[in-house]
Every structure is written in C-alpha cells, then in structure tokens.
C-alpha cells in the first residue's frame, strides 16, 4: 500500500485530498462529516473581519453547465465569504481541530486591504490552533467590488504587501490563493513568494455567466430579474488550472514555492496529474458539491492503486515528475513527424474523422477506397494534428504513429532527421538576424 501522507509546509494530513475553502467547509457539521468520510484536510470557508457578517442573496447562488445527460460539467457561484458570525466560526474551528488533530485545518481569510485588519484577524485565528491560513485573493464576485478577493489578487504589488503583513503578524504558515482572472499567473505567484508567503494555491474560480435565458432575456440564474457574473469551477476548468500550475512549477523565479492545486479535480487521476505537476496537496470542491463527500474514497483508493502499480511508495516519489516535459513552443522538435493511422478492425465508419479533416483541416482522410465506404489516412497530406483521434468515438481506433524511417510524402523530407526546434530554424527571422550579424 502506497503511503499517501503529505507534509505541506509542515502541515500533516493523512492524504493529499483537502476540501477547498467553499460552501462545503462553512461549518463544523459539514467539516466533521467530511473528515468522517476520509478527507485529509479542509480549508475553512473564508472568514471576514469582526463585526456584522456579510449578507448573501436569498435565492439562486449557483449556476451550471450540464452535458446532455445532465452530468455537471461546470458550476459557478455568487456566494460571498462566510455569512456566519466570526465568533461562531472561530469557536467551531477550535473544536474541530481539537477533535481531529491528524487532519489539516487551514483557515481562509479575506479582510480589507490594510495592515491593521489583517493583524487583527490573524491574532484571532491563531487562537484556534489551526494549521495555517490561506489568503483569499481569488473570489471574483461580490467581495471584489469591495476591493477584496480577486481585486487584490489581480495586483501583484498588493499580493506581496498583504503576504508580508501576514508573515509579520503570524507564526502560522501562509498560503496565498490566486485568481486565474489575470493574464500571467506567474506575476502574483512571484509576488506572493517575494512577500514571504509559504505557498500558493490555485486556481480560484473564473469569471463567468453560465447562460442567458432567451425567454426572459436575463442570465439563466437571476435574483429578482437581475444576474451578475459568478466564479466558475468544476471539470471544465481543470485544463486552465493545469496550465497555470505548470507555469508556476517551471518558473525559475518561483522555484521551491509549494503549490496546493485546485481546479476541477473530480477523480484520483485529476489529483495525480496535479501532483505530477508539482502540487503538494490538492483541493476539491465541485466534485463534493456534485456527489457528496464520499467521492474522496474513490480518490484515495485510486491514487493508492496507481502508486502501487507504478511503484511509487510516497507522494514525493512522483511529485513534479511531469514538470520537465513542459516547455515553450519554441523548444518543440520540428523534425519529429507523426501521422494518424486508423485501425480498420475498430473503425465503426462514422466518418467524423474524414469530415472534420476535410472541412476544417488538411483533407488527409479518404472516405472511400475502391468505391467503398472506408476511412484511410492519406500520408501525403496528414500533418499528424491529432484532430481525428480526438473526434473519433472509438477509443484507440485512431492513433498517431511516430515515423522514424523513410521519407515524408508530404514534405519530401527524411523522417529520421535529428532534433531541431524553432530557435535554429531557417524560417525564424531571429535566426536570419543572428546570421547577418
């Protein structure tokens, strides 16, 4: 059995699966249910400053995209930070941590962007004996209009400043939660590191309006006839999160900065992918909000079985292993040639490979052979783009085959040419310029 225990900033948890700061972690009853189900840790729903709590709408807070079978592809929300009294939250956090000392318990925070506010809340949170704090610089709705959440996360200077205050006023580990609603995710990550933060977590939710109701001419989810953008999460955002996590993982300026990954993690495989990109823990919300807390049991078993199959004894054995394979486009081997190949025994003759190639790509798949309906790749035109393999409804029916010997009929060039990328390619203007010097 693989050892799933994690040590993230000195915070230990029995497995890397944490519940993200969100509705599922707003109260003791939920969090204890989560721990009983097996979650390794939680990030408590964001606390605000002392005083009258924020007020949420009393109507639809969530929107969604469904597949045809009503499988939830993405969720969005306009819920604010906790609307419960600060004292109740602090008391419950303390009780839960005492009752569950082996689980990670991080507290998410969002207060106005001044040092005194942060100092005040940190002091109160420290009394709960929780394991650390996560600075919510990510929520893109509601609180951002009040200068908090993503309004901070979108300004690297603020990120750095607040991170520094928090490190100055607390002995607790500080995680900065980043918003993806920004052009270059490395900027706030670097700022967090610069400010002394111990780690970053990402991604928070993405600005989104899920649909327009064409009868009412409003967003599909409205409060008294009006809607507003929410923050989107769930399976659909995972590719964005993977990309952003990889950007930070391979950024020399962020080297060594621990990452807690968030974004559409639904199964063990999603989690393993983020770990392969260097994440120390993963945070989940939508999967739990779709199926309940029990989903973690699949995640734990799946990750453990995968690690056993691969011979990884601990998370650290494979954490970050995929990072070196991610590079800039300019370093891709332009002399590598792959072409699609259709397995005729598996082909069910739907013809989608043909029509998408014909209409939208390279006219490289024949629809008829000797007058008969049959789909065959034309090597003279195939650039190996992979579109056909992706649209084919049959798994493994179309594959890309790496060509190593012979001549490419499309280009007339040898398949076996040595590595060469754009940086040395004769068509690259920069190469011309260098040659001219």
């Amino acid at each position, binding site marked *: 059995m693989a050892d799933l225990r994690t040590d993230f900033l000195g915070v230990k948890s029995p497995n890397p699966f944490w519940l993200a700061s969100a509705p599922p972690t707003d109260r003791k009853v939920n969090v204890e249910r989560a721990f009983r189900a097996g979650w390794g840790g939680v990030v408590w729903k964001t606390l605000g400053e002392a005083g009258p709590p924020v007020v949420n709408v009393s109507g639809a807070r969530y929107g969604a995209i469904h597949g*045809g*079978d009503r499988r939830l592809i993405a969720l969005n929300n306009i819920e604010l930070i906790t609307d419960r009294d600060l004292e109740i939250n602090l008391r419950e956090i303390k009780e839960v941590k005492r009752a569950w000392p082996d689980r990670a318990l991080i507290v998410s925070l969002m207060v106005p962007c001044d040092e005194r506010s942060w100092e005040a809340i940190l002091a109160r949170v420290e009394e709960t004996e929780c394991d650390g704090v996560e600075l919510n610089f990510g929520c893109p709705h509601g609180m951002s209009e009040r200068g908090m959440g993503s309004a901070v996360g979108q300004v690297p200077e603020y990120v750095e400043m607040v991170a520094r205050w928090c490190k100055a006023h607390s002995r607790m580990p500080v995680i900065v939660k980043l918003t993806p609603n920004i052009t270059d995710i490395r900027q706030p990550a670097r700022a967090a590191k610069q400010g002394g933060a111990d780690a970053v977590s990402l991604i928070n939710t993405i600005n989104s309006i899920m649909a327009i109701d064409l009868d009412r001419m409003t967003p599909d989810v409205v409060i008294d006839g009006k809607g507003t953008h929410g923050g989107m999460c769930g399976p659909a955002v995972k590719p964005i999160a993977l990309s952003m996590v990889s950007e930070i993982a391979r950024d020399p300026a962020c080297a060594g900065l621990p990452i807690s990954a968030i974004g559409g993690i639904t199964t063990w495989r999603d989690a393993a992918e983020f770990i392969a990109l260097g994440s120390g823990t993963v945070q989940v919300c939508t999967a739990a909000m779709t199926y309940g807390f029990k989903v973690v049991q699949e995640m734990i078993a799946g990750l453990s079985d995968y690690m056993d199959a691969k011979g990884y004894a601990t998370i650290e054995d494979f954490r970050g292993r995929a990072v070196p394979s991610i590079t800039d486009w300019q370093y891709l081997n332009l002399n590598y040639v792959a072409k699609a190949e259709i397995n005729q025994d598996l082909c069910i*003759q*739907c013809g*989608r490979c*043909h*029509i998408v190639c014909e209409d939208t790509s390279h006219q490289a798949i024949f629809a008829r052979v000797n007058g008969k*309906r049959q789909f065959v790749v034309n090597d003279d035109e195939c650039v190996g783009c992979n579109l056909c393999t992706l649209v084919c*409804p049959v798994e493994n029916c179309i594959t890309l085959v790496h060509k190593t010997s012979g001549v490419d009929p499309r280009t007339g060039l040898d398949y076996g040419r040595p590595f060469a990328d754009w940086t040395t390619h004769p068509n690259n203007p920069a190469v011309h310029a260098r040659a001219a010097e």
Partner: protein
Amino acid sequence: MTIAANPPAASDIRPGRLDGETLKDNFADLHAPLTAHEARVEAERCYFCFDAPCQQACPTGIDIPLFIRQIAAGNRTGAGRTIFDSNIMGGMCARVCPTETLCEEACVREVAEGKPVVIGQLQRHATEPAIERGQSPYARGKPAGKRVAIVGAGPAGLACAHELAIAGVESVIFEAREKAGGLNEYGIAAYKTVDDFAAREVEFILSIGGIEIRRGQALGRDVRLEDLRRDYDAVFLGAGLGSTNKLGLPKETELENVIDAVDYIAALRQAKDLTALPVGRRVLVIGGGMTAIDIAVQSKKLGAETVTMAYRRGPEQMKASPYERELAQTSGVVIRYWARPMALEGHAGAFSGVVFENASEDGDASRSVFRIEADVLFTAIGQRGAPEALDGAEIKTKDGRIVVDDQRRASLKGVWAGGDCVFGGQDLTVSAVEDGKQAARSIAAALLS
C-alpha cells in the same frame, strides 16, 4: 370472411375472451413515447456521422443526424420539420418502419456495440407536436390551375397529394374505402398506432389545403381511368394491392373459420369494442411476413390460448425481421419453421386443423408429416397486384404490379404510380411515401414547366 362463433363441432371461437381493461392494456402503445429528457439523452448518443449510413438506409432519405442534433439542441419543432421535409408521414413511419432493418441496422452504434440510437422513437418524439397541432408546417403553393387525380388515399397517395399541394397543384383523391389512410388505417397492428393516430395524421396532411378526398370511389367500379386521364392534368395510381394469395388447397374457401388475416386485421382496427370480436381458442397462422406476425401477436393479445405461426421455410428466409419474430415469441407465439401445408381438415364444415409436411432441406430422411389442430386458421401469405383495377388500360405490369421508372412514371402517358401497387417495391409505408413524393415532384415538373 365468415366467422362462426361456437359451431356445433369442436371449434371454440367466441368474443370477450378477455375483459375490456385487459384488452386496453394489451393494445396500448408498444413503446411509450420518450420523455423530453430521455429523448435528449438518446439524441446525445448520435455521432452525427458523415454521409450517415442511417440516412442512406432510409427509403425517404430523412436527414437523421440533423434532426437528432436538433433534438439534442432543444429544437423539437425544427427536428420535426427536418423529418417532414423528406417524409410527411414521418409520424407513422416512426411507429411502423422496420427500423431494425433500415436506419437502426445501419447505425454505426449498432455496428459498434449492438445498441443503435433509437432513431424511430426519436423520430416519433420530433414529429409528435406538429401532428398534435394538426397543422402541416408547409404552406400550400400558389394554385397553378392544375389538378391531379390520385387513386388511393394510402401513404403513397397522401404523400403525393401533399407534395403537389406544396407545388401549388390541386389534387382529388379517389378512395375505395370509407376512411383515408390505407393500410395505416386498416392494416397496421393496433398496438403500433394507438389513439386513432392514422386518422389524425391524415388530417395533419390534409390541413395544407388543396386536397379533396372522395370516399367510396374505387377505380374500375366507380371511376374509370380513361375518364380520369381526360378530366385531370395527371393521374397518380396508389391503390395498393388487390386480393390476398390463397393456399391453393382443397376446401380452403368452403370451410368456416379459414380467414384472410388482412380482413380480420381490418375488422380489428375498425372495431369499436374489442370484446365483441370473435377470437379462437387455438389460432394457427400460415405465413412468414409482417401480416403473419401482426395477426399472430394480436390474436394472442385478444386472448387466444395458443397461437402457432407456421412458415414453410426457415428463419433466414422469413420476411419478418428478427425483431418482429422476437416480439411474436415474447408475446407467446410459437413459430414453426419448415412447415409446408398439405391439407386442410374440417369437421362439420368448420376448420379443425392443417396437415403439414416437414419441408426442411436437411434431406428426405427428415421428411415427416404432422398435424396442427386449431379453431381458426389465418392465411397471411401475401397479397397480389390488382391488374383488374387498371380498368383494362394499356399499362405495363409485372407480376400484377405496375412497372414504373425512377420518377414513378408508368408506361401510359400522364400516369404515375407508387406504393404497393408498383413492381419492385418494398411494401413498406416509408417506400410508398417516397414513391408519392417522387411522383409528385415529377408530375409538378411536367405540369409546371
């Protein structure tokens, strides 16, 4: 047709074998219509194939991938319109087409996993609202001052008339029976077309306007082809088939309770009260096509104790599809293959059984003779063409059916034909609709050019 209830001898034939409630259940919809959610989930299974095999397999060439995608995208009206563009009887075809040998057999998911997209049921879902509304989604073309005589208000004739109306050509349909619809009204198994669907579909088609139906008008009896040719700009013959084939065995016409399945099904379809219909205790059906299956299954549903279907050849040769055979078998019908009828037996003038010869091709050694006793014998061995209905006109026929070209033109100038009465057809509602549609296009081109 003579049915003797309780003849003095051994025959056990009587009405009301089952109570009204049970009969109602038995003759309810074979498939409940898909709910909107079911339709959408099923529609998502469609791969939207290139040059889709299902569409190629459809005699009317319905753009199946497109209408299914429209269902998936929440455009049920548009999906219906896509179907009607090719087949104005898409509603009935959704119910009666042997989809398992047409579109659904060709579906790539049938190839891939043995589970085709249920195209027929999706088609029913898409066509339902328009037929429910009773209004053709097409506007009648501006009247061009042309009038076509159509013989037969079955699928071919109605499809022809509707297509002509779109083109602005008026039509008058001469229908021998009292109701329009042809076999949809008189022939299709009752559980495939419940709630008077055939009649509602006829109203839906006629709603376009420019179509007059004259009922009780049979060609050769009430109207003459030469008169129609003289009085109308064109004639379309869609009169269906004539009399049914006979076994050709002695006593076939004399014995009571030897019944033509087509006649009995028509009586069943028109029956106001199924409990009043005489039903045999033991029913024997001779034949291997759809009519044989329909009469066998419906006999069982009417309360017959045993129903045996005897077919002279094997399952491979049987016209009824495996799906239809399975429907019969799961309804409790016993199918006997390789049973060639040799002699009819009777008692006191009433049918009592058939002597069969084992006709299997396994060699003479296996030949044997056996007897199946029953109270009723239904013959369902096919229908013949009706050249007599052509009224002595000089029209080329083959096997009693009219020979037409690809535009459905008969050999006589100004005469088109389609449906079961033409040679080489498939004897299906859907192919009759295609004939009517193609003929109408050809007629319109000829008249309006």
